């Protein structure tokens, strides 16, 4: 192996130093103490059951019983300790205790009051490492399973996260049942590679590729074009909580794949006790919230006349249709959308006895899409077993089997897309089955008949997947735990796209594609955690670990053209096949040291020394360090500090970290040879892409700083984070002179900076015995800027208009602009058109070199410019939770984006091809023409005209859950029953003229965002659910 032994040695030595200090790794034997006390809800109030009490710095702890009492019985060395109390939504100051000669220690009753602060929670920041939130220098967003499932979004966990992670941009590209979710945690850090975060489920790194096997919305060759998301395989019902590491300062120990952040999903586990059976079912009703407004004018326009012959429309006497003739119109949208229903049922059994706990669940989802003949089914089975073996060994096995099936339909830029057809075709075309032709009429303009596509195309996608792990924790010493985790994610995804012969035109001979993706990801984590008390005021938590990961993706594509009738599988005269395999392995050693000083000041330092097979031997080993500091300036309930006049709690924090990114292609370091056969012989030629053995990981350096401040006895808490991410060494295509024998080389040259703030205000607005109202307002603002590109090609265009330009945010819209007067008004020119004798048409002019400075002379070559930015200026969400009495919960979530532009390509086409409602204006004599028949084609290239403000506020979730606490429920054998009524995406407030500003043709593409082009809108969903617990 060709690593640098020096660096590796340093890390190994660091790890040894952390663990091998003889004074630390000895068992810290202590006497047995009994610490007891009581937890109350309010002063003189009711006892609080289920509160967690922990002796900080040890593993000793207990839960309060129904009477509020707790007893901790543990062997602890004598000394000063802090007792920490935690309960969701409540908080109190920790209590100091002294363990000395007295073995029975009684603590004063403690009041855990309603609080908006949550500092005691444990969060995961690295493979095998947990930390209290209060000790972290970086922010970690966490979302509870309860919040995920409040308004059930059974399609995808990603959908359920919308509006719940401060600052993150989570979008669904289109409303088909595959739910293609794209997530940007702190802006975009990539150009050629993916910008999606790493997904980790129970410590298993899962594959979350967004690349399409078949391009059904945008072409598969564009990255991130998938119509389904692998995140949608996870059943939301199994989720216990989700923790999000947004950037390098939090995710450094995840190393070279964590540049875009990490989403950690933790699934439910059993609790000791008698079996708890939970059965629930939800009925969903989905509908398309709004349709495109198409032309309903009673008379024919030029565009109608142009397609009349092809559509079989004539005057009653059989002569050609003329402008102004009465016509019958059909809005095809009414023929392909429907109000659809879905059902989601889940059953779980969990419990535990003695040294065994278990959780088993099964879920079935069946969702009709809002497009006829689309839909999704998913089966999930999970089993998790935790077995304590002896005093020291704990073994957890966890397996999740998933089978899913999605029926999709083409749309977007696909010529045979369903909505695409409606967008391109004037509404005099009747797409319904024509008895006299014996078939669906062919689309007169381009593309296919949308109803024929719905009825006769077939585009299913089947996934069979297993995600599981084995997790062994061994307490070698009281304060030293060794953990080994093996994670496996293995799936098979088969897509198919069948179009029968003569379904698109009289010359179309049929086509079937049948690609299969086989993906296997494995990770082995071996970690050791050593907790030690150096003194009463100083404790250390050391982490050392080794991780090995591998991921292999094997894509086999087969297909056939020229099909005989009824032949729906690959076969026949013209067949094709190809295969590609991508494999990456990483190996890393990591260490981390966390010091707690007086339980107030926390310092963290760590490093990950990682190698990836994607890089050459000389660049393979990379060091990703991190450091953080957290200072709890004021504890909850502490009235002695002068800070307490303003604050009720205050914590300040700062962190720094580095992570890496993989290259867009794993084999760029090799001098590859390409197959070029000649006249029946196999041949090879050198690739025109020059190899780059010196390629290294993209690297992100992030610094973040922030605070949490509680006010009014923690009834209001402000969280604030500032971050600065600089991602360097981005791999880009650097053009080479052809006379070098190559045309391009991938090099580490690009640089992108993200600067932003995230703020949240958690409040308890009202709390009485009968009513509690909590809310969370979160705001995020990110400024993205490309600071360095390839010097010789300073503009990369991705998709249609999205550009990467030095000095600009990634993905700005770049294209044709209006020629304007010096005052800024649009410059119009006069045109005549033979089809409109005697009329002078007014047409906006496209900016040329001749009138850059407001000069009206419209000559020279066209000048493109930056005409919009799809990145929002800020995002906001506002979540409210109300509890009425003890049985009714009510939630409402608003989610908004502001200052983001959308390129409305749908409108561009409906206007140009004469299917838009606006054509009615033209029919009524407006001399500013829209349709292609009247306008010289230059106009359609003034893209500025189609850029719109896409700011929106969505009523994302509304839900009400009522616990029925009646004797008849118990007669049924249930201990409780819940009824939920919920809605999702109920309303959108926006000035955007299209169907939905959240849609994106290019789905999860890294650069191409904010393009609306004939995509199925996101459904408005209503859910009715019941849940029984036995």
């Amino acid at each position: 192996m060709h690593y640098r032994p020096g660096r590796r040695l340093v890390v190994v030595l660091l790890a040894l130093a952390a663990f091998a200090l003889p004074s630390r790794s000895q068992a810290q034997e202590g006497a047995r103490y009994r610490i007891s006390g009581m937890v109350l809800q309010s002063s003189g109030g009711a006892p609080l059951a289920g509160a967690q009490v922990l002796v900080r710095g040890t593993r000793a702890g207990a839960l309060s019983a129904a009477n509020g009492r707790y007893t901790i019985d543990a062997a602890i060395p004598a000394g000063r300790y802090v007792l920490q109390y935690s309960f969701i939504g409540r908080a109190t100051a920790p209590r100091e205790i002294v363990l000395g000669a007295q073995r029975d220690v009684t603590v004063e009753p403690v009041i855990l009051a309603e609080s908006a602060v949550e500092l005691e929670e444990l969060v995961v920041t690295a493979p095998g490492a947990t930390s209290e939130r209060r000790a972290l220098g970086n922010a970690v967003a966490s979302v509870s399973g309860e919040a995920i499932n409040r308004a059930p979004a059974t399609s995808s966990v990603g959908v359920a996260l919308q509006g719940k992670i401060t600052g993150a941009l989570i979008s669904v590209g289109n409303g088909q049942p595959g739910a293609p979710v794209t997530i940007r945690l702190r802006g975009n850090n990539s150009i050629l590679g993916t910008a999606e975060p790493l997904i980790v489920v129970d410590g298993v790194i899962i594959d979350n590729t967004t690349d399409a096997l078949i391009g059904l919305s945008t072409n598969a060759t564009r990255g991130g074009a998938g119509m389904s998301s692998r995140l949608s395989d996870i059943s939301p019902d199994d989720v216990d909580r989700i923790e999000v590491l947004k950037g390098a300062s939090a995710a450094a120990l995840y190393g070279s794949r964590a540049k875009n952040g990490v989403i950690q999903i933790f699934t439910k586990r059993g609790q000791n006790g008698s079996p708890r059976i939970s059965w629930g079912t939800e009925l969903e009703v989905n509908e398309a919230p709004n349709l495109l407004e198409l032309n309903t004018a009673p008379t024919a326009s030029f565009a109608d006349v142009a397609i009349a012959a092809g559509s079989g429309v004539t005057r009653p006497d059989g002569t050609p249709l003329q402008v102004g003739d009465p016509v019958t119109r059909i809005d095809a949208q009414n023929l392909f959308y429907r109000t659809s229903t879905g059902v989601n049922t889940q059953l779980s059994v969990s419990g535990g006895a003695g040294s065994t706990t278990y959780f088993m669940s099964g879920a079935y989802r069946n969702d009709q899409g809002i497009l006829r003949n689309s839909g999704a089914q998913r089966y999930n089975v999970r089993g998790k077993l935790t077995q304590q073996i002896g005093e020291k060994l704990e073994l957890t096995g966890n397996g999740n089997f998933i089978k899913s099936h999605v029926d999709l339909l083409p749309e977007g830029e696909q010529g045979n897309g369903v909505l695409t057809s409606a967008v391109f075709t004037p509404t005099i075309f009747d797409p319904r089955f024509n008895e006299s032709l014996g078939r669906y009429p062919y689309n007169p303009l381009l593309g296919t008949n949308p109803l024929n596509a719905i009825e006769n195309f077939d585009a299913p996608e089947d996934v069979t997947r297993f995600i599981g792990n084995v997790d062994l924790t061994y307490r070698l010493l009281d304060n030293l735990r060794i953990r080994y985790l093996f994670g496996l994610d293995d799936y098979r995804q088969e897509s198919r796209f069948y179009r029968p012969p003569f379904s698109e035109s009289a010359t179309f001979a049929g086509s079937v594609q049948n690609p299969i993706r086989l993906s296997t990801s494995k990770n082995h984590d071996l970690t050791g955690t050593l907790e030690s008390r150096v003194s009463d005021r100083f404790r250390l938590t050391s982490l050392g670990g080794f991780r090995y990961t591998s991921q292999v993706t094997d894509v086999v594509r087969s297909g056939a053209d020229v099909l005989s009738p009824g032949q729906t599988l690959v076969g026949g005269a013209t067949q094709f096949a190809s295969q590609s395999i991508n494999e990456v392995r990483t190996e890393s050693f990591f260490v981390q040291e966390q010091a707690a000083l007086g339980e107030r000041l926390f310092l963290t330092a760590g490093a990950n020394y990682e190698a990836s097979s994607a890089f050459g031997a000389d660049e393979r080993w990379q060091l990703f360090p991190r450091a953080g500091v957290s200072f709890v300036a004021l504890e909850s309930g502490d009235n002695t500090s002068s800070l307490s006049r303003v604050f009720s709690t205050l914590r300040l924090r700062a962190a720094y970290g580095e992570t890496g990114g993989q290259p867009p292609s794993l084999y760029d370091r090799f001098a590859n040879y390409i197959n070029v056969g000649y006249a029946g012989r196999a041949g090879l030629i050198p690739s025109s892409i020059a190899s780059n053995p010196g390629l290294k990981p993209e690297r992100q350096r992030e610094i973040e700083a922030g605070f949490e401040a509680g006010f009014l006895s923690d009834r209001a808490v402000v969280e604030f984070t500032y971050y600065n991410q600089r991602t360097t060494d981005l791999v880009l295509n650097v053009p080479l002179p052809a006379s070098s024998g190559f045309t391009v080389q991938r090099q580490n040259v690009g640089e992108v900076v993200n600067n932003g703030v995230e703020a949240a205000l958690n409040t308890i607005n009202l709390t009485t015995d009968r009513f509690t109202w909590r809310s969370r307002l979160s705001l995020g603002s990110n400024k993205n800027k490309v600071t360095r590109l390839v010097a010789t090609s300073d503009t990369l265009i991705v998709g249609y208009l999205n550009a990467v330009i030095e000095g600009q945010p990634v993905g700005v819209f770049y294209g044709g602009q209006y020629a304007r007067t010096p005052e800024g008004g649009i410059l119009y020119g006069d045109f005549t058109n033979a089809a409109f004798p005697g009329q002078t048409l007014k047409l906006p002019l496209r900016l040329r070199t001749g009138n850059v400075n407001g000069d009206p002379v419209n000559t020279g070559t066209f000048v493109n410019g930056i005409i919009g930015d799809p990145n929002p200026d800020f995002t906001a969400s506002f979540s409210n939770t109300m509890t009425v009495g003890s049985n009714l919960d009510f939630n409402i979530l608003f989610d908004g984006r502001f200052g983001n532009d959308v390129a409305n390509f749908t409108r561009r086409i409906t206007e140009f091809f004469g299917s838009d409602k606006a054509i009615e204006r033209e029919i009524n004599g407006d001399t500013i023409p829209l349709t292609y028949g009247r306008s010289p084609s230059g106009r359609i290239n003034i893209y500025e005209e189609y850029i719109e403000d896409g700011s929106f506020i969505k009523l994302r979730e509304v839900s009400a859950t009522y616990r029925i606490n009646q004797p008849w429920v118990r007669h049924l054998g249930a201990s409780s029953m819940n009824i939920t009524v919920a809605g999702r995406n109920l309303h959108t407030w926006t000035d955007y003229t299209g169907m939905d500003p959240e849609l994106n043709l290019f789905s999860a593409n890294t650069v191409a965002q904010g393009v609306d082009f004939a995509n199925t809108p996101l459904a408005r969903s209503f859910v009715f659910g019941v849940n029984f617990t036995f």
Partner: protein
Amino acid sequence: MMMTQTFRRLATAGAAALLLGGCDLDLTNPNNPTEEAVITNVEGVYALAVGLQGQFAQSIEDYVLPSALVTDELGTRTRSLLSYQSLYTGQNFENTYNIVSSPYDNTYAVVKSANTLLAASAGVGLGANLQGGIRAVAKTFKAMALGMAAQSFEQLPVDIATGGATLRPRAEVLDTVIALLESARADIVSVPDAELTTLAQRVLPTGFTVPMLRNTIDAMIARYSLQRGRNQQAIDAATRVSATILPSLLFTAPTRNPIEAVAVGLQYLGATTNFVSAAEVGDRRPAYFVQTTVARVAGNPADSLSYNLKKYSTQNESFPLYFPDEMKLIRAEAQARLGNLPAARALINEVRTQSTSSLDEPVAGLPALTDAQLPNLDAVLRQIAYERRYELFLQGLRWDDVRRLPGQTAPTFTFLPLPAGECTNNPSAPC
């Protein structure tokens, strides 16, 4: 305690397995062979030699089209690309067009492949004769690529160089081309065909024999010597070329003749009206190349009409590397320029009066011209230009013909500009 020990052993074993067994990070590329796997063995060298020929064959359209569009060979249809139309009309042309970069880029990709093959052929234990044969293939295709590029560009690098090569005047490029071809000839001239059976079986495709390779080398020496003005060298080489074999680039399925793909498949191009109307009455050659009896198709510019192609109208049609009559016309022109007009006239008439052929080649079927009809050098050269126009349609040679021979309609561009990419990325490019 037992359990502790067992676990310790297991953990140690597991860690050791992880550290030693599964951690090979030196993965190879499963999708493509890499250089080490190709250039180090005989099979890899054969594959390189095959790939080189295929690469040149797939580039032929990029060489032929600019020449055909700037001269009077091809016109553009309404569907054709803007770049094709600007070459045809001479307007709104930009050096960012693929039609500019493709012939340039492909040339140096072929040169790169040929150089790789030349270097690899030395060290893998091929016998001297086979090595000579493979070297001859490498040099011939490298020379043909550079020679074709020299039809379109006024200055070119004569070889590749890291970071971009220095450009040389066209004459120097042609000198390099001729030297490469002479060297290729020397590699195999004294090797009998029987010693090159492996070359025929493993490197050259079925349908392209060793004699075809020898004839191609001589034909190319003749072609480029004439363009360079080395008339005697051209005559000597052309005389060595057999009139009864027709070496071609082959496009067996699944590959497709790229000229057919663009002109007929995409319906971008057709033969100009002038190609048919300017022919002598009775000249049978236009109908060999063009569907003269099928109605012309409207084009862009709107007033242009063009004929559908007949040659290159089927997907797997081969492309002749040269027609044997080109050799006669090369000799005629070289003799004329050397002052030997009678010899030139005789050769012109040999071409004109041919009325049958065993090969798939155009035949004129015209009467011979008298000495009075070809009274002087100028008239002879004009007549040679005419015969070349109808013998060598879409051979990529018309552009140099109209530059070299008198009395021809000026092309819309004299040469292609240097491609934008090369301008920007090659520090030694003069633009």
